[in-house]
């Protein structure tokens, strides 16, 4: 695998509707709270994506029915 820019997954909590697809696709990084809302294991509303999980993160972004997830790239 070539060297990639670091990607970060961001959650907009005002949009998230607890559909839960993100936690299914990225169980390593996301689990759901007792009300069905995603918790980033690392805490907060943004989490760095390990290189091996970039494609899963991209799938999570498209799978989220309300567009609450966003991926950014930085060096």
């Amino acid at each position, binding site marked *: 695998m070539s060297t990639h820019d670091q990607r970060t997954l961001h959650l907009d*909590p*005002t949009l*998230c509707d*607890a559909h839960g697809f993100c936690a299914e696709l990225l169980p390593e990084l996301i689990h759901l709270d*007792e*009300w069905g*809302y995603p918790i980033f294991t690392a805490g*907060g*509303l943004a989490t760095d994506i390990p290189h091996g999980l970039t494609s899963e993160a991209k799938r999570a972004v498209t799978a989220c029915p309300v567009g609450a997830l966003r991926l950014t790239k930085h060096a």
Partner: protein
Amino acid sequence: MSTHRLLPIDPQTGRVRDLRTPTAHIGAFGPLGTVRSAAHGKPGPLIEEIAASGLRGRGGGWFPTARKMEAVVASAADRRTRSPGSRPVVIANAMEGEPASGKDAVLLAHVPHLILDGIQAAAATVGATDAYLAVHRGTPSVKMLEHAIGERRSDAVRVELITPPARYVASEESALAHWAGDGVATPVFGDRPFERGMNGRPTLVQNAETLAHLGLIARHGGAWFAEVGDPEAPGTTLVSVGGRVRQPGVIEVPTGTPVADLLARCGDTDGPVEGFLTGGYGGAWVTSEALSSAAWAPAQVRDAGGVIGAGILWALDAQVCPLHEIARVAAYMAGESAGQCGPCRFGLPSLADDLEDLAGGACTSDDLARIGERLSLVVNRGGCKHPDGTARFVSTGLAVFEAEVSEHLRGGCTATRPGHTLPLPKARKTPVKRAGKDFK
């Protein structure tokens, strides 16, 4: 060195002077003079004085005002276009959402022109072409303020009075910008208002007291402002002192005043007090012991375990049940959620239910552990800091009143006086499920 800067005292009556008319205002403070405007992507020259003053925002966060203004100007300069849609706008936050706070209402009632001077000074400094003064709907001073604004014919920037709904989160800065632009008073997640606020414009939101101080800095300069107070957060500051003190009310003191002196100004505590609420319902509880040796400045109060926030100091009567008080406020804060984010919308009501059980003696140590878990579940996960403030209020309260918590787990309660003391606005009839017409 007088410490009655914002609120001059009438020597005859010992009361705060009524300076509502322009004549009385100028008689007491002198004229504002011209404040030069921002130009060529740089703030107006008053920024030097504001930076030198060390002024920090009095709305809760104590953020350096000069830095926020510079960020607004930089954000406007970054825009490629010079369209009106990229011009800065100023919003004066006189909403005073904290139920135990009274300082902004005192300023509005006695020195409204000082706030309006501050708005003019801020608008010129960041290059704003329009400005808003936000007071919550139903504020008694609306007519008087409209009149006061109308009397200021020589103002360079037009000020419009706006009245967002009286909801706790409606005065969070992104919610205010949202209201001013779109008429919806819910917090907005993402860009901060200084980057993209009202209608996407760089928006400077400042607390009413911050602006009143600015009105004086524009007259006397930054060095004058910093002559009194704690070097890290200079000047005087307003404190709303309430609860079990002989003379509750709003007082003006230099920052860094020992809490003991501050209480003495209010006639001292009147009966046993074990804990104080600092900063309001988004603030923190502190034991009397820890607070009594502290000084009223952000870092010192923080070291004592509290938070100055919007300048609230409430002495809780040791004879009432602190857990009932905490449960009531938690229920109020849960009802004030804008209902946009799951952890806030569901987490706060769950917590409020748990706390009601704890107050009522129907809580086991397992339930208590669940409260702890839920407290951590609502922190850092909302679109705004409403759940975080509520969680801090609850967690510090459970720690400060730990002995009472143990008593309740055993089914007891040491309260000897029934009833409630912390103020709450009238209960809302229907809890809000989703951000809806309640926020319009």
